[in-house]
């Protein structure tokens, strides 16, 4: 298993090189001069522009610039923005915010999604099942942009102004864990729906399997049949989904973080793309790729825990 992990980590190196080069090439291919962007609509001072171009190697060919960037990354240095702020300063605390948000969302997803899925599978074909399916359809069809603003207005603003209940903050991270409840839920909505349906299908399939029928036939208690045999075997696709979703949640938090003014990397990514702060964009994407790789590795390792037949050599 140790060798498996090492092999996977080595495989990650070309992936990382490829993705960073792609994103590097893409952000610098964007139309518009990043140095000009510093001055807004005013024309940038030519002396300042020349100095900055020199400093950021903007006059060199793309591949040379990428070389400089890699050299810095290897020494743990993400560079500085065109406005003179170290990229690592910008990262400080921001990944923590996004990670908290993504974890909250993942918890909502796992608890509500798997819970509803189980219930639907056990009540298959009855009204509960149909109601849950309708509910998931509703969740999928509301974009987070809408659910975010509506929940913010109803639970954040109106609950406070009409009933005086200020449990859900409107925006910001100043209220600790409570700050993450609404945005976490909003971020999780679409995934909750998918996970519910995935759990339902997966569990129904397992419930029809021979070994489950055998277990029931030999008189095993229902709770044990469900918990130990059926559920555990249905978990593999769910864990795959959750693992891949962690990366998606972190990268996809742009809208949610903007609506709720959470100072995370999603919000940062948006403003940085807008302001042509290419070093920040490349830096964030690099770290996100790393997170994807690690999350996938953990998922692969979890397979072995869930299904003893799977072994990594």
């Amino acid at each position, binding site marked *: 298993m140790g060798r498996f992990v090492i092999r996977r980590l080595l495989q990650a190196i070309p992936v990382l090189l490829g993705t960073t080069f792609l994103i590097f090439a893409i952000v610098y291919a964007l139309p518009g001069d990043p140095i000009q962007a510093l001055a807004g609509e005013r024309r940038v001072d030519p*002396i300042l522009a020349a*100095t900055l171009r020199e400093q950021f190697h903007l006059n060199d060919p793309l591949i040379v610039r990428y070389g400089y960037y890699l050299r810095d990354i290897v020494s743990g240095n993400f560079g500085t923005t065109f406005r003179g702020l170290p990229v690592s300063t910008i990262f400080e*605390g921001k990944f923590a915010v996004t990670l908290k948000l993504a974890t909250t969302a993942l918890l909502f997803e796992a608890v509500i999604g798997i819970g509803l899925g189980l219930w639907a599978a056990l009540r298959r074909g009855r009204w509960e099942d149909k109601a849950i399916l309708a509910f998931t359809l509703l969740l999928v069809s509301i974009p987070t942009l809408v659910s975010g603003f509506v929940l913010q207005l109803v639970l954040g603003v109106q609950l406070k102004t009409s009933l005086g209940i*200020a449990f859900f903050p409107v925006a910001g991270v100043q209220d600790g864990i409570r700050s993450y409840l609404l945005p976490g839920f909003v971020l999780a909505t679409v995934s909750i729906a998918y996970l519910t349906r995935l759990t339902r299908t997966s569990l129904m399939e397992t419930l029809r399997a021979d070994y489950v029928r055998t277990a029931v036939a030999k008189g095993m208690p229902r709770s044990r049949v469900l918990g130990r045999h059926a559920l555990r075997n249905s978990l593999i696709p769910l864990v795959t989904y959750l693992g891949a979703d962690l990366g998606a949640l972190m990268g996809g938090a742009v809208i949610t973080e903007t609506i709720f*003014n959470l100072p995370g990397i999603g919000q940062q990514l948006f403003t940085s793309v807008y302001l042509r702060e290419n070093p920040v964009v490349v830096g964030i994407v690099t770290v996100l790729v790393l997170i994807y790789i690690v999350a996938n590795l953990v998922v692969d390792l979890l397979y072995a825990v869930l299904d003893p037949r799977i072994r990594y050599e």
Partner: protein
Amino acid sequence: MRVTKGAQIVAGTALLALAVAACGGGGESSGTGSTAGAGGAAGAVRVEIAEPQHDLIPGNTTETSGAEVLNALFVGLVDYDAEKKPYNRVAESIESPDATTWTIKLKDGYKWHNGEPVVAQNFVDSWNYTANGANAQEGNYFFGSVKGYDEMNPGEGKTPTATTLAGLKVVDDKTFTVELKNPFSGFPTMLGYTAFYGLPKAAFESEGKLKADFGGNPVGNGPFKISKPWKRGTDQTISTVRNEEFMEGKAKIEAVDFKIYTDLNTAYNDLRAGNLDIMDQLPAEQIASAKQEFGERYIEQPSSGIGYIGFPIKSGADYAKNKDIRKAVSMAIDRKTITETVFSGTRVPADDFISPVVPGYRQGACGETCNYDPAKAKELFTSAGGPSMGAIELGYNADGGHKEWIEAVANNLRTNLGVEVTPKPVEKFATILDDLGAKKWQGAFRMAWIMDYPSPENYLRPQFGTGGSSNYSGFESKEFDDLVTQGDAAKTLDEGLPFYQKADDLVLEELPYIPVYFYQTNGAYSANVKNVKIDPFERIDLFNVEKA
């Protein structure tokens, strides 16, 4: 001056540009988990800002968020009253016999937050620092009118021959003199802006070198002082407390927290929920409901920006060169409908080249030229030979939220003049400016101006003067130049006004630009506070804000 407010970076230096507005992107945004629970002092008045683009250094701050914070920490030589006229604040007197050499005397009693007295040298040091091209300060260009600026900023490829402004001289602790390159009676109007604040001795590490941490923990001379050093890019709140030793008396509120938002709608929801106290800009789509919801606590007042349609009148297409066509185009634009519907009332129809926020504005100065009169417009257009001159091109930058109003203007022209109109989006505004500079741009273009200082001169010379820093239309008139110079040379601003207004009339007659709309400030405040006033630079007068 550049404006960034709520998720927007507006624009330009003496400049053009309002605009990228509403699009988002307020700088390296907000704060971090580490600020959780650290919302500043209890009972602090909470003010919305976007993230300042730079550290809190007066000379490097030309956008409104940073200026908002610095306005609480510093007081300038002058400030502006309700009529937008300057009155002395730190200055005891600002006088000149010839509008060229100005003697500035300071009042006794102002102190920096660290206890140093405010002396003349503080202003000279600060201005020299900002005017030094090597320091790359954004407010550098404000000192262009002072003698010695050219030696410090000789232009590309040349070596500066001075590191201080030759025009600045300290007479004694309370007096210094400023020599300008040319007479300018409006000079005192410039002195209230952020770039003209002084800096204490403690700000400098050595002569001409600012301490590295000053911008995060600035020492000012204003009614509030910073209570916790601010880390740009990380902290989401800038916390200040009342300066108990402030010379003019204590502010009425104990503390102010500036909260950084990237989205105006989010901030607005916080305002409605009572988690925020003052916003001096509201999301456009909420204006109508804000009027209802906030009633007396809703603020609407003119701001300094003007939006135009401009023409290259010397080097452009046939229609751009023809004065009557330009007038016909102006009369065919339905300004009222555009400002009310496209801009949801955040703009008002323009009727002068001088903004209503500065002295010298005359309501309706533009006369029938700016009145919507489709019949007359069509008649004028036809008699001037417009129909045979081909399609009118309307250039605009696609990144600034201009598409809607440009399309509306295009539709006005199509319907009212029967002419073909091609709106032409360009990636960045600078592209249009470059093409105009190179005389390659043929068609009409959008343009905007926001003032650097509240003087009518600032709306005229840079844009329409011969060789003006932002003269993109190619308008040239000796008579105009002379009138502005006479206005500058008048003893007082008031005596100069008639000259500026005559110069204004010349531009209105020739119409190189068509004034379309004036920008407005739309703000609101919570029931927690009262007596909220916003100045022409869109800064809140926090010294006089009270708890309700």
